[in-house]
């Protein structure tokens, strides 16, 4: 009984992974075909699972309301369902589905707008975090000042490249454009490349461990 719960799924995972590796490294036709079939399957498998999201959301809101029956919680329970119905109904019943004028109108004025605004809000949260982080000196308990090299490096990269992109600074600070581009193309590339290489090695290690059947999340969890 345990094999069907643990070992068999684990073995399926490893076999599929190895088949894809063979499809990449070798010219064997069988694996190329298998690669095509599997990659056409995965969007279907994941597509079938979308209902789970709706269930978990509704369940969490429902339990929240059960625990504390006030007006706010009732709103959080009902509003998503109403908007779900509006969007889903419009998509389902308008001719052309999601390409219909009615759906595009909803999509443009609500979805795109909220998306844009969420990005816009990040300007503010990033600004406040920068104000907090970009401090060159801290007071130590004795009352002296301590220079923070890493904050200075962060500030150097961050502020100069910001200035490079603001028209006013381009006009009044000569050379800021060149300096900004230099930061982006030289030190940034140096640090960034090392980080990318290191993270890639980490990812591959996890990948090999997973194929080996030793990764806990895929091998031991039931």
């Amino acid at each position, binding site marked *: 009984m345990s094999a069907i719960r643990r070992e068999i799924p684990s073995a399926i995972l490893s076999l599929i992974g190895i088949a894809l590796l063979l499809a990449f*490294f*070798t010219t064997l036709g069988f694996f190329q075909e298998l690669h095509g079939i599997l990659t056409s399957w995965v969007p279907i498998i994941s597509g079938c*699972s979308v209902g789970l999201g709706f269930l978990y959301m509704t369940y969490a809101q429902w339990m929240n309301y059960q625990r504390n029956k006030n007006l706010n919680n009732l709103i959080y329970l009902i509003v998503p369902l109403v908007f779900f119905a509006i969007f889903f109904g419009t998509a389902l019943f308008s001719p052309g589905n999601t390409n219909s004028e009615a759906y595009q109108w909803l999509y443009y004025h609500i979805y795109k707008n909220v998306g844009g605004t969420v990005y816009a809000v990040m300007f503010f949260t990033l600004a406040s*975090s920068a104000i907090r982080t970009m401090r060159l000196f801290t007071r130590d308990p004795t009352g002296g000042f301590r220079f923070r090299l890493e904050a200075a490096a962060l500030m150097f990269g961050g502020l100069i490249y910001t200035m490079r992109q603001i028209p006013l600074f381009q006009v009044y600070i000569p050379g800021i454009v060149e300096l900004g581009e230099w930061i982006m193309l030289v030190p940034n590339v140096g640090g960034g490349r090392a980080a990318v290489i290191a*993270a890639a*090695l980490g*990812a591959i290690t996890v990948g090999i461990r997973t194929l080996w059947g*030793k990764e806990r*999340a895929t091998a031991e969890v039931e």
Partner: protein
Amino acid sequence: MIKTGTYLDLLLFLVMVATTYYYFSKTKDPEWKPFIRHIPALDAIKEGVGKSVEENKPVHFAMGASGGQLYSTLVSMTLTALAFLRYLAIMCAEYGARLIVHMPYQTESIPIIEGTVREAYAFAGKPELYRREDLRYYGYGSLTWTQGVTASYAEEDVGLNLSVGIFYSDCPISLEMAHIMGGMNIGGTGRWIMVYAFAMMCDYVFLGEEIYAAAAQISKDPIMLTGILIEEVGKFFTYIMLFLGLVLNAVGVNVDVLFSL
């Protein structure tokens, strides 16, 4: 039979596999214990859970709005986030802290996330503390996710916020809001382009690859610990490639062609 243009990939891959084999066989020796440098952010997780219990606030775990990618090139980060989730859930169960998991929008990852949390509570011996309604789902895309997470922070307050996983332009809001609410922020991602947000907003940060090393360390499992050593060999191999490339280019070999093998 071997596809041209993949020789070097294959060599690197085989080096990693051979190293994995070598270290996996080493773990059979119970005496064997590798040295691994200390990662400060790890102690902070324990401290944060303790603080949450003290202040009677929940612990939040976020793995990114699209942190549930199972069949993309970022799958390793999802699995690493799950390792953190397991560790955190066990600790929360032991300390009696409430854990709220903000699930990514990829619904296909929900089963594995729920499985991880449920198993962790059972492992800690407190399966009765597990509550399904504390697995939150917010719909498609990062915009609704950030909004939902922020709303949860505001309503339920934040003791510790651990954010490890795949982050795009969603973390700058959630992390800063957790900070403003007075929560302790710990986190990191393997996507270098977003690490800046963690470095600036978190109290403790895992810089890029550190999440993989940290995930290995928290597991206390020798098999997972070997991961760090395998990566280390990969890094030395990279240094060797770099050095050989420089030497060969200096003596006039066409490195562009050589590295395209």
